[in-house]
């Protein structure tokens, strides 16, 4: 097609209607002149029409030819195919509904999980030249990469870097900002001097933080912070004079020097800090803790860098390798530490960082990929199912297709038409799936990142997600459509028209492919069901294993006391007042305190030992009076702590059963002495209590010890009240708030979480995977049932006359039923066998997600096969029963 032609055609595209009328005007003009001539030549008026037609030809045919000429042939064909396909789909609403539903499910699930993967693993940071960014880690010979740096390492890297334009560090933190009445908790981030320079995003107002600000005491103008556009909106009402205003953070005034635009999210895509403060202000913001002075004992920083233009990652790594040792020696004079690190060939490594760093990534990568494969399985299943149904339908349409081939349609044309049909299904399914995906991915993200870990995930649709959806649509269209289309249009035209459904030989051959499809469908479904069974069983076992305390009707109320005035015994008296206030609330049965909420992923450990014995690693907590009764942890021996267990009364410790057995094997632990390794303090064992899970539900309860809060080394411990209630605790939140406002007006409003929530969060990955896999397995069973039923129903319908003849010749109805049923039974049995073999191989990949469940758990395997067999039997029985009801005479007469 020449350029000129293309131009004219495109032009005509925009004046289609006038084109058509011009063409008919042109043809009419000619016919009018022709009639004049003919009547002048003596043709009778009654014969004029016929004569005109004879000389001119069929005017409407010419008109059509001309219009065609001006159109894009293939495009117009496509449109015609589309409308034909739409008509065909409308004519079989049952098929269409099943097709769309299964595809919506498959595409929706895939896109939802993909957008999670996209948000967490794929999307680059929205900063200029993100590909120049790197994330730094430390190699210490361990199996896990270590991304947590201490201050001395980072400061050395920051000040001597050749390969990097900028090196920066950050730490997500919660800032206490003074509001109108009390301090409020605001998510924030401590960032080093080169952080903003490296991320190269211009502030909306004012300036960003510079190395000048990242010094003790701040720049000469004082302590500076940068806020986000969102914070500027909610806190300052978008006041234009926000730059220069004060924010009191941790009781110290900071100056707002700039506002960052909304698109700036920092270097961790799963965090959304509202305030950025200089790293050097950590002693103020995290007071009384001081991560900077803690030196090599505080591994709190994530370190990133921007490469010098033109420098490759390999070059950067070479340069890092040479500085690693000097930096290690500079960091500390602890010879033991340096020696140990040198033994494992400690060195720094830079890895690609265009996507920033997120600790959530390390945690959720594998569950997400596992879920993604489950979803892909469902989509494949949906496609196989549709291919099977289309093939069955194609077989029913074979006479139509053969006739079209015979009257001159090319095979390519028919395949195109059939593919258009599947493309239409796929597109509609994808569109519906996309709509569902947006909702699903948001709730999935919420399910996955639940809890107070402060994670957020942007799962919005972007080019990558849409591209993925388009890819899915096309792939599934081809998967669904191509094989059936090739099958349906193959073969000899004459045979088809002559013999119709009696073309026996071809029929035999043609029955194999649908069977293969169905068998793979059954196999795939079985794999999914086994996976779901394993995950669900594991989840149930995990839940049943219990945490060691009674989590029901238990509420945690977290008080942050680190920025108020009271400390030591005075603070303890305040806690006591809070406890008394809380226990007076209606519905409250018991109140106590704990430093670490179990299973909240926080922890504290130390080495303790019997006098003269090797110290052992133990997990610790400091708890209030009546703690074990409140938590319903069995108290085997000894007594609860009381408010009288002050520092002056001698150090006390309570051991759990495992710790007691570890420190005093075969002995009575109660009343014994326990020595802490570092401080050499001696504790007296006052009780032995039941084991509880500490950080992780999946790990068995570790040996742990409890000390009274009154003897805690911290001056201003921030404790959580544990409250045992009877029934719902609706009023407790406001009661706790007003109580705190009255007794400790300076602290932020206390936050409530029920212990069940904490537990759910601790199992969120398992819960999500179990829920999803069970849902997917249910869908897989349903889809397989539809496939088995649909294919068999079509096949049986096509054999109506054969069955009629069999019955006329005396076949029993029971035998006919078996005959039909056998078809699917064979397919289902073979499919199950293959599926079981695959499941045995694949389920090993799930092993790391399973708790107390073998990936080859026989009950799960047997149960899955049984469930699948049951579903398959029901789906196959219906067409079989229908076949048995065929009236022989009616069936034969139909031919």
């Amino acid at each position, binding site marked *: 097609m020449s350029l*000129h*032609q293309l131009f004219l055609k495109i032009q005509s595209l925009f004046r289609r209607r006038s084109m058509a009328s011009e063409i008919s005007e042109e043809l009419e003009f*000619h016919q009018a002149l022709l009639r004049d001539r003919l009547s002048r030549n003596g043709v009778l008026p009654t014969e004029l029409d016929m004569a005109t037609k004879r000389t001119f030809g069929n005017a409407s045919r010419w008109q059509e030819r*001309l219009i065609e000429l*001006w159109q894009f042939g293939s495009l117009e064909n496509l449109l015609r195919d589309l409308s034909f396909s739409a008509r065909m789909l409308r004519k079989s609403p049952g098929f269409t509904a099943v097709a769309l539903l299964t595809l919506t499910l498959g595409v929706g699930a895939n896109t939802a999980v993909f957008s999670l993967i996209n948000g967490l693993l794929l999307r680059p940071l929205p900063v200029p030249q993100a590909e120049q960014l790197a994330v730094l880690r430390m190699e210490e010979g361990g199996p896990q990469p270590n991304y947590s740096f201490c201050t001395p390492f980072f400061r050395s890297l920051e000040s001597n870097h050749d390969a990097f334009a900028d090196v920066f560090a950050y730490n997500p933190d919660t800032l206490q900002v003074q509001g109108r009445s009390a301090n409020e908790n605001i998510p924030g981030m401590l960032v080093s001097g080169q952080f903003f320079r490296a991320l190269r995003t211009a502030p909306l107002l004012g300036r960003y933080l510079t190395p000048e600000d990242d010094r003790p005491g701040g720049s000469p103008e004082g302590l500076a912070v940068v806020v986000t556009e969102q914070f500027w909106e909610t806190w300052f009402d978008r006041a234009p004079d926000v730059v220069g205003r004060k924010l009191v953070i941790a009781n110290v005034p900071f100056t707002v020097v700039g506002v960052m635009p909304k698109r700036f999210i920092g270097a961790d895509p799963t965090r959304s800090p509202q305030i950025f403060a200089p790293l050097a202000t950590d002693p103020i913001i995290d007071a009384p803790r001081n991560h900077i002075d803690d030196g090599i004992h505080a591994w709190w920083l994530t370190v990133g860098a921007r490469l010098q233009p033109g420098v490759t990652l390999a070059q950067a790594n070479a340069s890092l390798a040479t500085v690693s040792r000097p930096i290690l020696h500079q960091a500390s004079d602890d010879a033991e530490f340096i020696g140990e690190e040198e033994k494992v060939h400690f060195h720094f490594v830079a890895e690609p960082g265009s996507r920033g760093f997120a600790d959530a990534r390390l945690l959720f990568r594998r569950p997400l990929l596992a879920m993604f494969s489950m979803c892909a399985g469902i989509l494949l299943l949906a496609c196989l199912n549709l291919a099977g149904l289309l093939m069955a339908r194609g077989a029913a349409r074979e006479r139509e297709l053969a006739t079209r081939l015979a009257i001159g349609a090319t095979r390519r044309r028919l395949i195109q038409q059939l593919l258009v049909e599947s493309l239409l299904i796929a597109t509609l399914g994808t569109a519906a799936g996309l709509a569902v995906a947006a909702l699903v991915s948001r709730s999935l993200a919420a399910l996955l990142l639940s809890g107070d870990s402060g994670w957020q995930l942007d799962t919005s649709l972007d080019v990558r997600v849409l591209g993925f959806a388009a890819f899915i649509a096309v792939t599934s269209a081809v998967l669904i459509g191509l094989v059936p289309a090739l099958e349906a249009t193959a073969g000899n035209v004459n045979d088809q028209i002559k013999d119709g459904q009696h073309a026996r030989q071809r029929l035999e051959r043609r029955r194999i492919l649908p069977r293969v499809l169905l068998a793979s469908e059954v196999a795939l479904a079985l794999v999914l069901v086994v996976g779901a069974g394993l995950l669900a069983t594991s989840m149930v076992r995990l839940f049943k294993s219990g945490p060691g305390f009674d989590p029901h009707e238990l509420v945690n109320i977290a008080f942050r006391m680190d920025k108020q005035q009271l400390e030591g015994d005075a603070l303890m008296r305040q806690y006591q007042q809070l406890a008394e206030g809380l226990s007076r609330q209606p519905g409250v049965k018991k109140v106590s305190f704990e430093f670490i909420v179990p299973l909240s992923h926080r922890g504290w450990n130390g080495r303790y030992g019997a006098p003269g014995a090797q110290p052992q690693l133990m997990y610790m907590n400091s708890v209030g009076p009546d703690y074990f009764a409140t938590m319903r942890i069995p108290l085997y021996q000894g007594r609860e702590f009381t408010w009288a267990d002050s520092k002056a009364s001698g150090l006390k410790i309570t051991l759990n059963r495992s710790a007691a057995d570890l420190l005093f094997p075969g002995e009575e632990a109660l009343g014994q002495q326990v020595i802490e390794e570092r401080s050499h303090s001696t504790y007296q064992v006052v009780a032995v209590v039941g084991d509880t899970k500490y950080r992780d539900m999946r790990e068995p309860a570790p040996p742990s010890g409890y000390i009274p809060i009154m003897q805690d080394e911290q001056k201003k411990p921030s404790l959580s009240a544990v409250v045992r209630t009877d029934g719902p605790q609706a009023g407790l939140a406001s009661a706790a708030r007003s109580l705190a406002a009255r007794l400790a007006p300076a602290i932020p409003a206390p936050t409530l979480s029920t212990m069940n929530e904490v537990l759910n969060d601790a199992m969120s990955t398992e819960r999500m995977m179990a829920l999803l896999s069970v849902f997917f397995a249910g869908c897989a069973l349903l889809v397989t049932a539809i496939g088995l039923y649909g294919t068999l129903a079509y096949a049986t319908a096509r054999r109506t006359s054969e069955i009629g003849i069999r019955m006329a010749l005396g076949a029993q109805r029971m035998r006919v039923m078996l005959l039909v049923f056998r078809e699917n039974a064979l397919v289902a049995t073979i499919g199950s066998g293959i599926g079981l073999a695959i499941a045995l191989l694949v389920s090993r990949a799930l092993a790391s997600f399973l708790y107390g469940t073998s990936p080859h758990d026989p009950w799960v395997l047997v149960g899955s096969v049984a469930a699948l067999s049951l579903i398959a039997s029901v789906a196959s029985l219906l067409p079989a029963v229908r076949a048995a009801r065929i009236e022989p005479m009616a069936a034969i007469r139909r031919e």
Partner: protein
Amino acid sequence: MIREESGDLIQGTLEMLILKALARGPLHGYAVAEWIEQSSKQVLKVEEGALYPALHRLQLRGLLSAEWGASENNRRAKFYSLTAEGRKRLNAESQRWARLSAAVAFVMQAS
């Protein structure tokens, strides 16, 4: 579509005849058909509608341009005229035809 007394004329030939008809100036479709019939002394009879696909194809290829104007009896009609490229093509085609027909005549007269 276009019939000689025996057999069909190939498509290219019809297009050549159209170009020739328009060599003397713009004509509408009816006039083209008339001219071909008359100047072939009624030997070449076109199924007249078949003229139009050829006309439109030539227009699409840029060999003809078309314009709406008034006919001799004052009706709106679409007039076709040769473009520069069309004229070039006409020359090339007539030379080719002359060579071809001479050669065919030569063969047929050979004893």
